[in-house]
């Protein structure tokens, strides 16, 4: 590995460990947890959007699906099992939806995924089991060896571990033949087919993978905030995901990290309530796409090139 990269990783590791020890404020720890949850979510989207060039504007549907599955099964089977169930269920749903829907391209795909997100939201609102706008409260917190993980600081450790594992796992996929296959099909489908890549299967797999990570993130979210309702899983949120990867840089995992952290920090620095935040996200989306299509990571890359 390049020395620059090793240094970056080492620094990040130190920062990750030092952060909760140095920072006492619950607010900041809370934001860190949120950043981590978004990071789990966006890691999968990097492979989907950045590598395979497939769009989805409905991933809040998978996020919510994972959240509900975990929240509803945890009281019976335990939190860890619930989270696993949420992740797996989201994977299955992602594969089932992905296989047919990814035959579409471009605007059709955008519309179909948007519709999917809306359909899920309607189901979350209308089905009795999800209790619609009233929501599910009293979601249990996870525990290890009898110790409950129910404070921002303890949850931070959980989320940081999961996020790091997810990022490493996703990065490995990206640098393997699978990652190359995804980039190939994102670049030129005909050539990819001829080289032996099963396009339909690869698309469905990456979609399912991103859905699984969204579901996992949803489960983490549910067990942290201990309350979820249909309102948490609207198209707004799907769009926020796009903002995060656009801002960070949609084909880079560092970008996903940058984007997640940048957004949650910005939210705090502006000392905002959520409505200002969304306004800010909206403006950001516009500005980034117009003037910085490569995202924040492209700034870092050009700075690195300059220094050589």
């Amino acid at each position: 590995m390049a020395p620059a990269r090793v240094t970056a990783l080492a620094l990040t590791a130190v920062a990750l460990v030092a952060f909760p020890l140095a920072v006492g404020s619950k607010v900041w720890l809370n934001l860190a947890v949120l950043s981590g949850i978004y990071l789990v979510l966006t890691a999968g989207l990097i492979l989907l959007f950045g590598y395979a060039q497939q769009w989805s504007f409905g991933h809040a549907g998978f996020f919510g699906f994972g959240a509900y599955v975990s929240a509803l099964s945890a009281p019976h089977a335990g939190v860890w099992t619930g989270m696993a169930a949420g992740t797996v269920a989201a994977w299955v749903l992602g594969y089932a939806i992905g296989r047919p829907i990814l035959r579409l391209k471009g605007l059709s795909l955008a519309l179909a995924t948007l519709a999917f997100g809306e359909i899920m939201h309607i189901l979350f609102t209308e089905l009795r089991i999800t209790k619609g706008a009233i929501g599910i409260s009293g979601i249990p917190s996870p525990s290890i060896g009898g110790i409950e993980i129910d404070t921002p600081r303890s949850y931070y450790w959980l989320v940081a571990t999961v996020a790091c594992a997810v990022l490493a796992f996703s990065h490995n996929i990206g640098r393997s033949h699978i990652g190359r296959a995804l980039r190939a099909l994102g670049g030129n489908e005909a050539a990819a087919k001829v080289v032996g890549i099963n396009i339909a299967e690869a698309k469905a797999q990456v979609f399912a993978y991103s859905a699984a990570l969204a579901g996992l993130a949803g489960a983490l979210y549910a067990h942290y905030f201990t309350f979820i309702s249909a309102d948490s899983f609207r198209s707004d949120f799907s769009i926020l995901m796009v903002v995060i990867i656009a801002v960070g840089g949609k084909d880079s995992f560092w970008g996903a990290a940058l984007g997640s952290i940048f957004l949650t920090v910005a939210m705090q620095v502006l000392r905002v309530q959520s409505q200002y935040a969304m306004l800010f996200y909206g403006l950001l989306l516009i500005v980034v796409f117009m003037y910085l299509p490569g995202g924040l990571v492209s700034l870092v890359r050009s700075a690195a090139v300059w220094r050589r």
Partner: protein
Amino acid sequence: MSAADVLQFVLSGITMGSVYAIIALSFTIIFNATGVVNFAQGDFAMLAGLMAVSFIGFDLPILVAVIVAIAATGVVGGAIYALTVAPIPRAGHFTSIAVTLGLSIVLQKGAQFIWGTESHMLAPVSSRETLHFAGATITPQAIFILVTSALMMVLLYAYFKHTRAGQAVLACSENREAAGLVGIDVRWVRAEAYVLGCVLGALAGILVMPITTMSNTSGLVLTIKGFSAAVLGGFGSAAGAVIGGLVLGLLESLSAGLISSSYQNLIALLVVVLILMFRSGGLLGTRTLH
């Protein structure tokens, strides 16, 4: 289910369908002339509706308030065009979707500051409750919507076929380079088409508001429905937009009546997805989205 029931569903279906058709048309006009798929289209409708409410609150007569609201939306549209569309004439699809989604959020949240999150109501066209017609009931508002929509289609047709401005927009939609070569100022035409689209969206908002009320978040649903209607009929085709809108409205109304009103949106969405999957050219099979 009696014939009167069916008639009822059909009437309410084509009423809402006309509104969707107008939004779908506005999508189509903007897309054909500028290549942008405007995911904020429904929010222009919302903006116009809420502005009208405010103007009425300033004691303007209703008709004036409505006209000013539509015009104001057009102006806002023009400004947005200048800021976000004109600078990047060759934006890819992903960029235009992302930028317009961002725009949608900005409009929604901006509206939230001014009008809060409650639903607002615009008074319907006539205070008389309902009319009766072959066993079905229909409100004056619905008739107003149908008549206005029909009138709008006729006007648009005349505009495109018989005015120089309209023909210029058509020419740009067909072939941007050729239009430029023939001396058409493509940038102005694109801006005109964009503003026209916004004005149509605004009109749709005004028409539908008395029936459904409107809050700052109503835009997204209208966007999805309008977009679905356009895609249903074959994206890029004006006739398709109209037919798609009507079909979508009928679909919704029938499923509300036969199945459940809470699931009507879901069924409409599902049908749209299925049609996308199996008939990529839309119902009329005229054009594909790429």
